[in-house]
């Protein structure tokens, strides 16, 4: 699986949505991405990329695109 596929899959699994909903998605834009969904998403991202995210990054990750930017800090490039 490519990093992008893993990234999308984390959103699909964490938020229980479809892959075609992920591009441009933002926190609280859909009911599934509430505070509970957010923590599920973080858990899926951490497992997918074998990382432990810092609290500030967890809070700042408020969109699909922002997540890509944040993951660079952890050495993960989403092409």
């Amino acid at each position, binding site marked *: 699986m490519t990093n992008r596929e893993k990234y999308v899959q984390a959103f699909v699994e964490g938020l229980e949505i479809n892959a075609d909903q992920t591009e441009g998605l933002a926190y609280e834009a859909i009911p599934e991405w509430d*505070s*509970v969904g957010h*923590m599920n998403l*973080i858990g899926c991202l*951490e497992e997918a990329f074998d990382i432990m995210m810092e609290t500030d990054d967890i809070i700042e990750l408020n969109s699909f695109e922002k997540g890509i930017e944040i993951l660079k800090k952890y050495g993960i490039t989403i092409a």
Partner: protein
Amino acid sequence: MLEINKRIARTWSRFGLMGAISAVGILDMCKTNPNICLVSADTSGLDRFKNTYPDNYYSVGIAEQNMIGVSAGLASEGNCVFATAYASFLTSRAHEFIRQNLGYLQYNVKLLGFSSGVAAGTSGVAHWSIDDLALMRAIPGLIVLSPADAVEAVKMVEKVAEVSCPAYIKLSGGKNSPIVYEDDYDFQIGKAVTLREGADAAIIATGLLVKDALDASELLQEEGISCTVIDMHTIKPLDHALLDRVFETHSLVVTVEEHSIIGGLGGAVAEYKATKECAPRQIFMGITDEFKKTGTRDYILGQYGLNANGIAKTIQNNLK
């Protein structure tokens, strides 16, 4: 039954005990049981439940006594009711209502006392819930529970929903609660979990301090002292069979709780131990009989020696 693994345990720990129960445990139960109700006395953080099952959610405002009456009424119509409020106010202000409606009349209401212990210490001593186990334990007919982490809290509500009788669940800490269980295990009400076997002392802990007890046993192991560590998640009914084995095989028992040393886990264990002809010495670790300075949870507990270092030091000093 919900899946449990390392990732899920970490995610639920971020929710904290109350968050995991409301956003996962009770929410999941509602998928198959339309008679589950969640009643809140102005509790925040229940949006997921409220939005998903608005017809199963009731908020009575900051009115704990009224909440018990409302919950009893809902239970009288055949519902399985979870009622939540700050543990300090739930168990003290609404005590009489719990005693009459739940203890005596046995309405099927499960009480969720969040911010129990000293989790809300920064709000002042009024928010310390250090007597809830004592208050609830003394009510006949009430099951009294105290989970060690978010995974156990979720498993606990699943099990307690299967029995049609009232219960109190002590929920300490806030978000980012410690993790004791990373895999699924067999949880049964009234059956304590032995997390570690040792020979020199038995640490019987409850609530979030189970993790500190485990960490203390690691510190003690480095000093050549081996401890049994037990997660006593059910305060009433107490696991007498396990305690019998512990009393026979250990010369020192240490009870650890985020609660007064009077009337809680320590008291429950001591009451049972007193019925035995030969029983080991017991050290009571908890909130001693004085209000020390308030502050964050870690600060308050540190004052009472209720952390891994404090537990280890106490045991080491008593084994000399």
